[in-house]
């Protein structure tokens, strides 16, 4: 897949990034650690994640709440939340282009996860590891497609969002997997393998984007 990453395009937040692959584009921002907006968001031992996702059109609905929930399940695995007790880390996401039918969120979730990861790096918040998300679909013929297009998704039997952590330039742990539709056990394992090699391949682009941003921030070092 061809990936376009824009590093730190936003001014008022601590870290931001846009992630575009195919017809899907998402912009994410991270601010924090900041003071909790209300007392009930102050957790005594760790930071509170305030996640806010907005759709490309229309008002946020239960669909976005579920996406926020999924992101909230994934992120504690990579953020060192316990380093920021009582603080809030605010994550705001704006979906710019869906790139898939309305009843699907796979491509958007991939773009959300990847853009939030880069935004987190830019914000300087302490992370445990690197990660990357990708999506796959299984067609009616049982064929696996990585980063399926909108029409491939629509005609698929099942589709998956897979997130792996990356350590020492290698695929490490399966951090998140969200599968919808019906599939066999073996098919899922094939999907995980395909996703892993896809991630290993594409993470180079993200790494490069991060590296060039770092050197940009230190122009005087050159």
């Amino acid at each position: 897949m061809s990936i376009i990453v824009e590093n730190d395009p936003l001014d008022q937040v601590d870290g931001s990034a846009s992630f575009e692959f195919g017809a899907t584009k998402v912009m994410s921002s991270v601010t924090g650690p900041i003071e909790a907006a209300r007392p009930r968001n102050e957790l005594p031992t760790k930071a509170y994640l305030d996640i806010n996702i907005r759709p490309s059109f229309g008002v946020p609905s239960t669909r976005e709440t579920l996406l926020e929930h999924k992101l909230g399940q994934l992120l504690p695995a990579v953020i060192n939340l316990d380093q920021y007790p009582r603080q809030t880390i605010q994550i705001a996401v704006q979906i710019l282009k869906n790139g898939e039918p309305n009843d699907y969120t796979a491509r958007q979730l991939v773009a959300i996860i990847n853009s939030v990861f880069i935004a987190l790096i830019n914000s300087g918040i302490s992370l445990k590891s690197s990660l990357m998300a990708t999506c796959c679909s299984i067609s009616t013929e049982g064929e696996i497609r990585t980063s399926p297009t909108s029409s491939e998704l629509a005609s698929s039997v099942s589709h998956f969002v897979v997130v792996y952590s990356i350590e020492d330039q290698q695929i490490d742990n399966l951090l998140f997997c969200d599968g919808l539709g019906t599939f066999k056990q073996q098919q899922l394992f094939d999907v995980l393998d395909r996703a892993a090699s896809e991630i290993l391949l594409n993470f180079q682009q993200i790494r490069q984007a991060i590296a060039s941003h770092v050197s940009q921030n230190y122009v005087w070092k050159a």
Partner: protein
Amino acid sequence: MSQTASLKLNRFPPDVLARIAPDMLLQKYLQIGLRPSLRKFDEFRPVVISCAGVGRYEASEPNGDINGVGSVLGSSIVKSGKTTAICLISGAIVEDDHELVNDYRTKLEKDIIDSDTHKDNKNASVYTEVEISRGASGPPNEEEIAVSHRLYETIYHSGLIERDALRIRLGYKGSEELEQEFVPHTNYSFVLYATIQVFSRAGPVYDLCYGALISALRQTRLPAVYIAEKRTEAGVRRVRVEEYDLVCEAEKNEPLKLNENKIAWSSTFGLVELDRDVPHDEDKMEIDTDGKILLAELEGEAEENIDTRITVSSNGSTLSGLSVYGAAGVTKEELRKAFDLANRRAQYVLNSREMEM
């Protein structure tokens, strides 16, 4: 002034320890091969599925007359351990609009292209609202919304309900066929709604709600619908609005057609690493397992503290609706173990006598 200070060993009862140091308590149990919920590692809570019998076309007693009242089309009560979920299904009628918006082509070409235009939305789902009783009123909280939408999403993509199964074939009163010339221009379909109330919440809510929803859908019967009359009203500023009065038969109905092989049961597992450093009594039985322990249906404060989870639905052999997350990472071997358990569990629950009702 001589006083000696002494450190006393503090002992906490399990429920207190579960609150202040859930991970410690969990490890203490696991060391001796037990769980805080006292179930075996791979043991699920007993599940009882029963008929609520409140639907319009359901009978409240076996072999009794159908209730014949109300607008509930299907219902179920599912009890898992101490937790109960009551699911009610109802419906409404909507004018099909996808014909209208997606039918891009001119009429001449319609037949050629029809086959590929409607592929994307052949599935339907149930608009679900989950309510977990917790001694507070107000709008649904984030967890309730997430569970509700997850149910909608999982049912939609699993292909359990086809759009065609909800299409209404209009008749005349008393079930006569409708004559061609009276057939309205538009097509109508049912929309399904579900409300699930969860009492005594403990353990995985999603599994229970999924079970309740599936069980209620299996009981759901759709009314036969006929056109009572065609009204042409003069509305505001004498705009003519054509309306059809659609009436559901009081007793005539047919069961909602489900794709039987897509009926599944959902199971949730927790994955926890055994901490060898936690002190434990030497003489107690030691479990030998390297790596992580898979626990079926986490329940109680100590167990629910585990944040690596696997949720999967299975019809006994085929999987659907998978959710895996957690910092510990999940290996294929662990997934395989979870899937096997989920398959066996689904076979057991779906074939049990209760499910037949």
